[in-house]
């Protein structure tokens, strides 16, 4: 038995029974929607850091502020993690590996970078990194789910 995706028509009495066919269609997609959403959250940052010079920006900015040596190498590591992590999550390929890489990255972002701005997202606080990290941890637990390349291939981490 894997994560909770089976549309359990009949297990649950509905207040509006007419909606049952709609739920049977939509419910199995919900886990995949969250997985793809998390991937899409990283895709623009990954493309920016990999191809549009964003890695030089974080090397001079946040990574230096973290006190790392060899910031250029770290900036490429961040760019690769975000780009490939995003692609893996969107496709559901090597899902647990991709999600875990992003958890490590988000741990540093949350507690190393965003923490000093407070909690709320509007003054760029750490709730953004924290919620994304927790959701990626949940994806590490659940894996790719029914609509993933992992499942199609039949192997997963």
């Amino acid at each position, binding site marked *: *038995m*894997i*994560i*909770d*995706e*089976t549309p359990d028509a009949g*297990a*649950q*009495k*509905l*207040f*509006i029974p007419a*909606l049952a066919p709609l*739920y049977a269609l*939509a*419910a199995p*997609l*919900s*886990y995949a*929607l*969250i997985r793809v*959403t*998390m991937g*899409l*959250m*990283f895709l*623009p*940052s990954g*493309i*920016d850091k990999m191809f549009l010079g964003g890695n030089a920006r974080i090397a001079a900015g946040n990574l230096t502020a973290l006190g790392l040596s060899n910031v250029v190498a770290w900036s490429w590591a961040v760019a690769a993690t975000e780009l490939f992590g995003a692609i893996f999550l969107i496709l559901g390929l*090597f899902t*647990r590996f991709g999600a875990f890489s992003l958890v490590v990255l988000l741990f540093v972002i949350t507690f190393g970078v965003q923490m000093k701005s407070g*909690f*709320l*997202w*509007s*003054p*760029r606080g750490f*709730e*953004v*990194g924290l*919620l*994304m990290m*927790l*959701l990626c*941890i*949940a*994806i*590490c*637990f*659940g*894996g790719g789910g*029914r609509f993933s390349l*992992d*499942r199609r291939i*039949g*192997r*997963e*981490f």
Partner: protein
Amino acid sequence: MSDDDVQMRKYLPWMVWSYRWVELYAFALMRLFSGATFFIHGYARLFTDNPTFGFNPLVEWLTPVGVGAIELVGGALLVLGLLTRPASLVLAGLWFLFTLGATPVGKQHWLMLGAFDHYPAMLFLLSIAFLMRGGGRYSLDRRIGREF
């Protein structure tokens, strides 16, 4: 039961211990984390001196108290998995307004901005996912046996 029962071969079989015992709870944890985030938003809007964080012209008509009440109650319901679908529907509507009203910064396209600018869209899509799924296996909805 169905195709959720498939057995997957593992690349690293010795890693299975790290998630086998929590695998079933993955979706419930997502609901819990998201609900807690909404709840804290609501608390911050109602009980702290920063009630209008993230506001834009499209949500101003709801007032900070209205938005705070929606997020506090909706977040609590999501955490419990009680009335999951109605709560998600209202939260999705609210964060749709937050997403639409987010002002683009500079000349860069909205979609190419960073995670902070996509965060309202992320919360909107999360709400849509809980609207699609309902409470799921570990929720009060399931315990009660009836849901919307």
